[in-house]
């Protein structure tokens, strides 16, 4: 039996990777505030059917006589419209909660799909190199050369309206960012010895890419991911505002803002402003969390 000194066990105060990550993240109060806000927003969106005072999709519940009521007004059947009502008599608070649900769904889904496609292509490009890398990265370059909004507008004009269509458009616009980040992260990892060691053990190429390369290239992808989800939500709001996004039956935040736009000049500010604030808070919360993630996960800023 050897008599090597035993290295400290976790019980001796050595933190698990997750513990260290969490405590570093919590160092910034602003980021924690962002995280709390984000959790509240996500929970509200997820629990929308139980939280919202009204089901904004149920047209039978709407009463045109309640249209354009200011914040705090009472409905005919005693319901208080805390944030007022829109042009169809919909409770703005409920519409915002449901709209946030749609916005988050679109943002997170398109982000996740773009992340999967982009990071696999990027990591493969770094691992395989050669012609595959050339082709993928040139497509990325071309993609990034066009303004995102333009590409999305053209796609939506061709595809039509609907949540699936807008997700396709957002994925098309965004996968290139993930691919570029994944490739550069994987290029760094690829030349580290543990990849060489994994190859010297005779592991298959797919296994090395998926189990060894991808997880180690993940931190920068997470950072880009949070920023891009915020981006996707903003882009979707923009597209909806321009009338090319989601169908008006299930309005997202962007469409709500757009709906209230025509009333803005006549003093009925709440129809546009409150969804705008909700959108702002959502994106702000995601970005605050993303910034801190970047600081914690960036090895160059390691303390």
């Amino acid at each position, binding site marked *: 039996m050897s008599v090597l000194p035993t*290295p400290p066990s976790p019980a001796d105060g050595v933190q698990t*990777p997750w513990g260290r990550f969490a405590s570093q993240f919590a160092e910034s109060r602003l980021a924690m505030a962002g995280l709390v806000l984000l959790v509240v927003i996500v929970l509200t969106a997820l629990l929308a059917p139980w939280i919202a005072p009204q089901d904004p999709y149920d047209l039978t519940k709407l009463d045109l006589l309640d249209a354009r009521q200011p914040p705090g007004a009472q409905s005919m059947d005693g319901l208080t419209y805390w944030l007022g009502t829109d042009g169809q008599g919909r409770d703005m608070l409920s519409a915002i909660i449901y709209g946030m649900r749609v916005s988050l769904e679109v943002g997170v889904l398109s982000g996740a799909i773009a992340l999967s496609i982009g990071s696999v292509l990027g990591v493969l490009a770094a691992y395989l190199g050669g012609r595959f890398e050339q082709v993928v990265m040139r497509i990325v370059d071309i993609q990034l050369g066009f303004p995102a909004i333009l590409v999305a507008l053209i796609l939506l004009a061709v595809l039509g309206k609907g949540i699936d269509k807008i997700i396709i458009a957002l994925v098309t616009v965004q996968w290139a960012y993930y691919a570029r980040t994944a490739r550069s992260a994987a290029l760094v990892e690829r030349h580290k*010895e*543990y990849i060489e*060691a994994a190859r*010297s053990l*005779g592991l298959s190429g797919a296994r090395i890419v998926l189990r060894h390369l991808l997880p180690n290239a993940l931190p920068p992808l997470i950072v880009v991911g949070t920023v891009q989800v915020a981006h996707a939500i903003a882009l979707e709001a923009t597209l909806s505002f321009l009338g090319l996004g989601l169908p008006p039956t299930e309005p997202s935040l962007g469409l709500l803002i757009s709906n209230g736009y025509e009333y803005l000049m006549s003093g009925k500010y709440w129809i546009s402003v409150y969804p705008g604030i909700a959108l702002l808070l959502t994106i702000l919360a995601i970005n605050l969390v993303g910034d801190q993630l970047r600081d914690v996960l960036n090895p160059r800023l390691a303390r």
Partner: protein
Amino acid sequence: MSAPLLAVRNLRTEFATRDGVLPAVADVSIDLARGEVLGLVGESGSGKSVTGFSIIGLIDPPGRIAGGSIAFNGEELVGAAPERMRALRGRRIAMIFQDPMMTLNPVLSIETQMVETVLAHERTSREAARARSIDALTRVGIASAAERLHQYPHQFSGGMRQRVAIAIALLHSPELIIADEPTTALDVTVQGQILYEMQKLTRDSGTALIWITHDLAVVAGLADRIAVMYAGRIVEVGAAADVLESPCHPYTRGLLDSVPAATAPGQRLKQISGSTPSLLRLGAGCAFRERCPRATPECSAMPEMTTVDGRALRCHHPLAPVAREAA
């Protein structure tokens, strides 16, 4: 004597660089019997690591094996199908790397990394793979292996990590292990323990070992034979004791003289004058002639490898009397 486990003949490995083709390994021939320990010694850039990587088939572009043959158990490895090489790697030929901080994947637990190595080559249950891993960890002297299996590389010290790397290399009881300076990054006491255990493990299992190092003291106690490389070529091969006690090649002599232990305290260390030549501008002759005290005009022709009494040498003017007759 039975057929050698590994027979490398006239191996040439080149790297295409901006300034031309760089012959990192040229005309290298190595024989290795089962269970034999060969110390491959040389300074940085002498081609010893590239020789190891060539054998295991991990030369990446811009590098390539430009000529020669590598026979493993009689099977030709140069030009073998990538799938065939993958089946051999890790199972019958294993490699241990220099820096144990770098060779374990930081985001996977030791268990994951060991189990996946077992399953890469054998269809067996996860449980059996786990048991094998625990057994391998215990063999390299890791206490309470079952608990440590769940830990991540950062929870191990440097020496422990190298033990884990060795345990991974041993999982399939390979016939050949190529160890690329595995103790260089460790401190001297840990180095001693690892050396001792490597020696014991290879003796017990009859594994042949190529130990690549620049440290003559390390191979002195470990290797059966020593091959000295200079500028991509092997300049001297012989039984470890012979090479260390009566070196025939002026370069080996110079290497041994520059070991601090050979000098009395207060005396200046002997050194080999000049520095390693660029592999791009070697010219035709002996690569060592610019720095060699015994060089003559004859040395501008490349000396052939000559063998006398199991002692192979590449020199026109060898030192010891044993080999002088052959020159």
